[in-house]
């Protein structure tokens, strides 16, 4: 990983003074999660935009369960401070909007909040699903929230994030893992994003009894591409959260893979996921653990070439590893037994990319494969719902890995700074999001693609 010297500089005493005087962008140090950390480092404000809000009650309950001090009167002084004291988070129930005029209430809640949210603070807006509205005025109002949130995220400072959650009708009580993710430091590098909850019908599950410090306890998790990089961190994160990890990578990466597996007390499976029968081989290996609950399709390759110079062998290798292997393995998982195969209530999490959303010069094959992953997620979600299972994707932006360390300095610095959080993410940021999707408590999140990119401006 390449060191971020700029961040060191602007965070040093003299560097901060110089940067402040000449207008260099600051690089906030993001709060990141560790076991035992409280959900929030301070109090939270809770607001409602309309009288018809339907989620404030649930938010109140979750925050109370997490022992967070909640204030619903923005004018009231907090603790020993005043009505302008910093808060760690602000949550707005913006459900029930009936026309764009109602957006003023959203503005009225958020305007003071923008100055009150502290370092690595969290602003979370919860709205209705726009597509579920028939009347144009309602749908317009609901859709407006996205533009508001994405813009506000670009204004937030000191590592604070602003995100939007759409909650389907009837899914109010299925928000707990989502609230906990977006409010906690697990979502440190998720900024300016939108997530839909409860939008794929037929889901089932419960967050009752979840150990939020170890939310995947007792689960068996397969992670492909686990020898190094983000995959290795995903394995470590799932193990930290309580899972038994089966680390998968190509046989030629077997020594690094063994290191990962031994590091997390899991097992190593040397397997080329593009092999015929790869899905069966994974299930066969997992039979020793009694089956599998979580599959993370992390393995991916790049064979970058300008399209003008592309050749089909390179093209196919990228499509095969990044996309076809996932399709084939998912087919095997879907057809497998609930008993010792892919368990009922299982989770598939896959890795898309910013390149799959916005495109990247030299990455037509990679971009195609990663956009394909999004299609795969959307189409597989309803199929998995029949198994009470889910599939979701993360789309990482600029993450500090060996791959980004190999970039030219200019490209790397642009990748880091041209984002709302003015820095590259860490592999653990991607891993935290994957681990959250993998939770049993995330049963109502299906078919979603969430960017973990610090709201990168490239392809925003």
């Amino acid at each position: 990983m390449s060191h971020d010297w700029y961040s060191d500089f602007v965070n040093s005493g003299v560097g901060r003074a110089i940067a402040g005087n000449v207008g260099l962008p600051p690089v906030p140090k993001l709060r990141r999660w560790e076991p035992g950390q409280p959900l929030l480092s301070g109090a939270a404000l809770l607001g409602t935009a309309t009288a018809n809000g339907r989620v404030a009650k649930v938010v109140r309950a979750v925050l109370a369960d997490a022992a967070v001090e909640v204030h619903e009167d923005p004018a009231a002084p907090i603790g020993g401070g005043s009505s302008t004291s910093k808060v760690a988070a602000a949550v707005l129930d913006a459900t029930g909007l009936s026309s764009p005029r109602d957006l003023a209430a959203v503005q009225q809640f958020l305007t003071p909040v923008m100055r009150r949210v502290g370092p690595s603070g969290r602003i979370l807006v919860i709205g209705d699903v726009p597509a579920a509205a028939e009347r144009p005025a309602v749908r317009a109002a609901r859709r407006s929230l996205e533009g508001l949130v994405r813009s506000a995220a670009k204004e937030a400072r000191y590592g604070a994030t602003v995100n939007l959650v759409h909650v389907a009708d009837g899914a109010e009580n299925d928000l707990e893992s989502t609230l906990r993710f977006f409010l906690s430091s697990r979502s440190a590098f998720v900024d300016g994003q939108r997530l839909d909850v409860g939008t794929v019908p037929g889901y089932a599950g419960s967050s009752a009894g979840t150990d939020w410090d170890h939310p995947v306890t007792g689960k068996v998790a397969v992670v492909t591409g686990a020898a190094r990089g983000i995959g290795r961190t995903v394995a470590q994160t799932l193990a930290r959260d309580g899972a038994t990890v089966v680390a998968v990578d190509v046989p030629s990466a077997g020594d690094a893979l063994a290191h990962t597996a031994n590091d997390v007390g899991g097992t190593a499976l040397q397997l080329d996921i593009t092999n015929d029968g790869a899905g069966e081989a994974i299930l066969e290996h997992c039979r020793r653990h009694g089956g599998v609950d979580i599959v993370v399709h992390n393995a991916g390759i790049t064979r970058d070439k300008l399209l003008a110079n592309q050749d089909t062998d390179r093209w196919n290798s990228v499509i095969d590893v990044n996309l076809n292997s996932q399709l084939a393995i998912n087919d095997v998982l879907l057809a497998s037994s609930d008993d010792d195969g892919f368990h009922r209530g299982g989770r598939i999490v896959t890795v898309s990319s910013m390149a799959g959303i916005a495109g990247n010069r030299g990455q037509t094959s990679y971009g195609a494969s990663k956009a394909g992953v999004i299609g795969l997620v959307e189409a597989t979600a309803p199929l998995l719902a029949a198994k009470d299972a889910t599939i979701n994707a993360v789309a990482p932006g600029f993450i500090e890995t060996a791959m980004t360390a190999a970039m030219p300095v200019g490209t790397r610095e642009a990748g880091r700074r041209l984002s709302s959080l003015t820095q590259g993410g860490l592999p653990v940021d991607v891993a935290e999001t994957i681990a959250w999707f993998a939770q049993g408590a995330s049963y109502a999140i299906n078919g979603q693609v969430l960017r973990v990119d610090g709201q990168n401006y490239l392809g925003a």
Partner: protein
Amino acid sequence: MASPRRAAVVGANRIPFARSNGAYARASNQDMLTAALDGLVARFGLTEERMGEVVAGAVLKHSRDFNLTREAVLGSRLSAATPTYDVQQACGTGLEAAILVANKIALGQVEVGIAGGVDTTSDAPIAVNDDLREVLLEANRAKSTAGVVKALAGLRPGQIVPEIPANREPRTGMAMGEHAAITAAHWGIERTAQDELTALSHQNLAKAYDAGFFDDLMTPFLGVTKDNNLRADSTVEKLGKLKPVFFPAGGDKAEATMTAGNSTPLTDGAATVLLASDEWAAERGLPVLAHLVDAETAAVDYVHGDEGLLMAPAYAVPRLLERNGLTLQDFDLYEIHEAFASTVLATLAAWESPQFCKERLGLDAPLGSIDRGKLNVHGSSLAAGHPFAATGARIVPTLAKTLHQNGGGRGLISICAAGGQGVVAILEA
């Protein structure tokens, strides 16, 4: 007494074997054995697990490595509460280690154990010669400075020549290849037959790699992902161009048959195999690849007698067959260690010879021939290389996995060893 249970071969891990003074030149036996153990730990999720025992050894060993296996275990991810011991039976070490662990499992003394072997001819121990050693020991024993000075005064320039271990029999002074050349000549083993066996070994090993056979038997080490002695394009024609390197003492050099191609090269590497009771495997949902049924070790007098140095397996196998009520043909697979192609062929010739079987083995009829299509089907030492002590722990899982893949069957393992010894065993799946 109730018949003891049979130990199960559950799985294995080895590092790819590398030709001497190459990729692993700077790796020690302890490094390689630790890496092989850690790969096994990863494959079977054994981090911090206490094994009943780990038994392994090396043929070429530094004096500091008196507790080689224990040191490797302490450096591995196994529980430090795992007991170990070292064994050394030349090229039979790996198989003998497996037999020892299996026997303890069979008797119920342990539920699970790891057998292994490792060797490096690159990081070989170099000793001071005996003259110098005596001078230094005398100096060490001296009680006064004057005594030390007096002892050291005995130093002579010639004494600094170190002793480098060589692949030679101490009692005959002959290289193992020279011994094998005598045996090859005795049995009239032809050059072409040796080259054919060699080419087949390479081709079979290459096919096994292509089929992913080693994906769950091996973990890369120091950037090596395959046995680097393997020549997938090996042919009888190419092998036929090599000049002989081993000659029978007093024989006709023009009739020499043994080349660097049809003899195993000096090799570095390590191998481990996981053995357990069926119950232990079942509790963890692990498959049983095969069971170790029985084993036998023999030795021949190659010093004063007239038997070939590497012919002991020819004696061990008939004793093993007799005890198990089997014939040589009652096997689905044969794994005969390819120390030299000629050794394999001389052993087969001996079993086919009525005279040998009658005079040496005391049998009324020869053991007969085997179906060569069942021999070393995934390649053997000529292609993979032969880190002496590791070979047995390479062969046991190779055979066990093949039997398992075939849906069952019986296999014979035969390994010749320096000192005129041979270790053989039966696996069943």
